[in-house]
């Protein structure tokens, strides 16, 4: 059970910094992130942080649209082909992503793949059937 913090942002100068300012003031550490942009002038910032619940509340208190969103996190080896290995298994399981990003846990050894899907519960069932266990949040948020 891991969460990312998703923030609705207009694509305007300084709006991203408004988010990081709040996180900085609240001593929240960012582990990984993605920023998407749509043609309609807005985008979504996805953050993997050490304290998602606190991050969401602090951002909301500062007038931002922030939501917690469940993500699936898988471990992989940090070497060439490591991502392909896990993606192959997920593809065989029939899993489709909305968004995905990664983070290195231990250089040259271990990395994480973070996957955002449309229907979290259905996806969880699908990976469980294929013996692909997502990682728990202590691994995901920790150092």
């Amino acid at each position, binding site marked *: 059970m891991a969460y*990312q913090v*998703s923030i*609705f*942002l*207009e694509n305007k100068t300084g*709006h991203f910094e408004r988010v990081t300012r709040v996180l900085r003031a609240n001593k929240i550490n960012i582990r990984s992130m993605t920023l*998407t942009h*749509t043609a*309609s*002038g*807005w985008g*979504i910032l*996805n953050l993997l942080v050490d304290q998602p619940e606190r991050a969401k509340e602090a951002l*909301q208190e500062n*007038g*931002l*649209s*922030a*939501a*917690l*969103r469940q993500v699936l996190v898988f471990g992989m080896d940090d070497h060439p082909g490591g991502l392909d290995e896990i993606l192959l298994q997920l593809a065989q399981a029939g899993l489709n992503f*909305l*968004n995905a990003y990664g983070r290195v846990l231990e250089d040259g050894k271990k990395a994480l793949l973070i996957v*955002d899907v*449309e229907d979290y519960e259905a996806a969880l069932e699908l990976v469980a059937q294929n013996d692909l266990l997502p990682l728990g949040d202590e691994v995901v948020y920790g150092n």
Partner: protein
Amino acid sequence: MYWEKEFETLERAKLEKLQLERLKNTIRNAGNAPFYKELYQQEGVTADKLKHIDDIRQLPFTTKQDLRNHFPYGFLSRPKQEIIRLHSSSGTTGNPTVIFHNRHDISSWSNLMARSLFCAGIRDTDVFQNICGYGLFTGGLGFQYGIERLGCLSIPAGAGNSLRQIKLMQDYGTTVVHAIPSYLGRLYEVFQAEGLDPRRDTDLRLFVIGAEPHTEEQRQRIEELFGVKAFNSFGLSEMNGPGVAFECSHQAGLHIWEDAYLVEILDPETLEPVPDGEIGELVMTTLDREAMPLVRYRTRDLTRIIPGPCACGRTHARIDRIAGRSDDMFIIKGCNVFPMQVEGVLLKIPEVGSDYLITLENVNGVDEMIVEVEVRKNWFNGDVTRLDRLSRMITQQIRDEVLAKPIVKLVEPGSLPKSEGKAVRVRDNRVLDTVKI
């Protein structure tokens, strides 16, 4: 060269005499409509009290709100079986503005329309392509009947589908086009994309443009791009639609047909007449409409009378192009839009807040309506597709309401001006010589 010399060049004194006579008939006839019957009894208005056309100033005004309040039949002064057509404003919130016509009204409107087209230099030898929505919108059928009355070959092309419009022009040798000015920029782009030059590859010679505010510069640009003369048309659905006022070949203001309409220009605050040449609100009375006469209708359009006679010999007054509105209505893509309509749509969508900002902008030669709305904080869950769907749904619903397709932009909560007090709801960044009163 006149369509109806006897009316168009009538001496002012005789014209005013005709107006008084027609005004009296109008007041008598209006007394049959439930709305005017009650109003005139209450105010003691009778046709016999009118001795001079200036006596119209003693009569009460009619507003758009009156039309809405007495929807649908409160303004009918003739039995329903006599009515043969209605035209109506768009809208799903509140009562639309509906105008009814009997056989006489359609005939008289068609004639005014033919007179207008003739006045701009269009003849029965022309091939006339009407690029304009048909249906409840008056620009389609209104022009159609006038084109036919004049005797041109009419092509009722309807709006949109630029490739097909170009094909029609080439297949039938179109010489005259009626369209809203902002569409013509788009049409020219399509000509270019097809490797065509309208000056070389068509027989176009004359455009009629209207239903949308535009500057003299925009007109000249259209004339240059297409190698045509472009003439200004003015009308409003409450006064039938197109055919109310039209430019003659001198392009020096729009002749407003005073045998059919009594024209006043009033200060919108004091409601007193302003001198010729000064801008005020156009207030109009129908003089030749039977089924639904309107007396002293406040159009909310701001314009001025151009002083002095026109070189063309027509004696009917000329009005200047519309300089703005005395209310918050704006026109986009030929559609009349009140900010309240957009607000009404947004209020019914729980995913967004009630604050909004409409920006009117000219994007690559096409006028666009950009509607910014705030996504509600507790609805947002981080899903991009859901936001995308919301944006499309709002676009569709506003389009259904006002008929013009908006560009919807979702913005962060709290970023728009708050609804308390006098928030600015519309920003018009189009280049217009508008005047604020």
